[in-house]
């Protein structure tokens, strides 16, 4: 099926290959460099994943705060998938000013992302989310996405009872199985599909990155220059 139809009229999400792996590896390596953990000449994401397991909750929080100052991750992510993005949104875009680097440490006490619609944050209904791991996913550490039909069914029921992201949505996550994708693949989804991640058991932390994009010609909702920036694909 055509990717656009798949995302708008079909399941609402798709798994796509990263087009520019050289750039995406550079993105991963720049993340590794920030940790300043010496590991010879080879840049190994697993060293970082392992180091994260030993970090305290406050150290992980500090890392999250520190990470929001890096603005070039968005450009790198967008330029890792230029044709895909151009096909969906054109060349002129609004993109997330600071893409997220998300790390999840195994164990229930650690922070994870609840089941939610991306729309609840106030991004435009014309946005897409691109999520990609910085390593292969061999366990349940990845993101799960619930197809559009089921997500919409829940949204309709919730709206009828005056709720958004209520108990039904929160309860759904225990039945979910995250996508097991490889480094070099990305999940792309529209803002109406429910998604999140589950607690997982692993010997390593999970590190992924995500960016939100929309066409410059489509209207904004609540997110403005605080969250988005104008960007023109080369």
């Amino acid at each position, binding site marked *: 099926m055509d990717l*656009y139809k798949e*995302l*708008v*009229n079909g399941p609402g999400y798709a798994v796509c290959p990263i087009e520019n792996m050289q750039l995406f590896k550079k993105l991963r390596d720049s993340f590794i460099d920030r940790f300043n953990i010496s590991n010879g000449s080879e840049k190994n994401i697993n060293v970082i994943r392992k180091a994260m397991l030993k970090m305290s909750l406050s150290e992980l929080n500090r890392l999250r*705060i520190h990470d*929001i*100052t890096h*603005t070039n991750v968005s450009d790198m992510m967008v330029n890792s998938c230029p044709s895909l993005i151009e096909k*969906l*949104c*054109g060349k002129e875009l*609004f993109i997330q*000013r*600071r893409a997220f680097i998300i790390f999840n440490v195994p164990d229930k006490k650690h922070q994870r992302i609840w089941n939610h619609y991306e*729309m609840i944050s*106030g991004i*435009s*209904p*014309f946005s*897409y989310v691109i999520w990609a791991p910085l390593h292969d996913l061999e366990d349940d550490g990845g993101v799960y996405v619930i197809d559009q039909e089921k997500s*919409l069914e829940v*949204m*309709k029921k*919730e*709206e009828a009872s005056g709720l*958004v992201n209520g108990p039904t949505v929160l309860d759904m996550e225990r039945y979910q199985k995250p996508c097991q994708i490889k480094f070099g693949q990305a999940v792309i989804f*529209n*803002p*109406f599909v429910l998604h999140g991640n589950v607690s997982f058991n692993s010997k390593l932390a999970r590190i992924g990155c995500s960016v939100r994009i*929309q*066409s*410059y010609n*489509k*209207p*904004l*909702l*609540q997110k*403005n*220059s*605080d969250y*988005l*920036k*104008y960007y023109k694909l080369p």
Partner: protein
Amino acid sequence: MTTATITTDINIGPFKIPANGQNMIMNNYAERNNLVVELLIPEPMMSNALATAQWVHKKRKLTKVILSSIHQLPTKQDRIEELLINMEDVEFHFALEGICGKGRNFLLEYIKESKIFMNAKIIDSTKTTWLELYKMMQEKGIR
């Protein structure tokens, strides 16, 4: 060598941020970026000329100023020119956008970006529903 925060009118482009909210935003930004704020400049309401900041700069030699957003930059051409001439050597920080830099080109780039956002269409979230937003995406497409 002075770093100052600047509060302005509550209406900041698409945002409505009271002055104490602006102070919280700017002080949090300063803390995260290890900046020590020595001066607070209150600009008058109903003005985005940043004229007070320019007068203070003449007297106190500001090195860095922190604003809440790029939308606090002037929009009228004569006011823009004055700012570019008088504050070209001052480092500007915009807390919500998390960006900083100095010089004519830097300021012009963000004045332009502010204009792009002000010209963008915005869906009024107070006049829609979740299902209407979904319908909008399905019918008007994403391209």
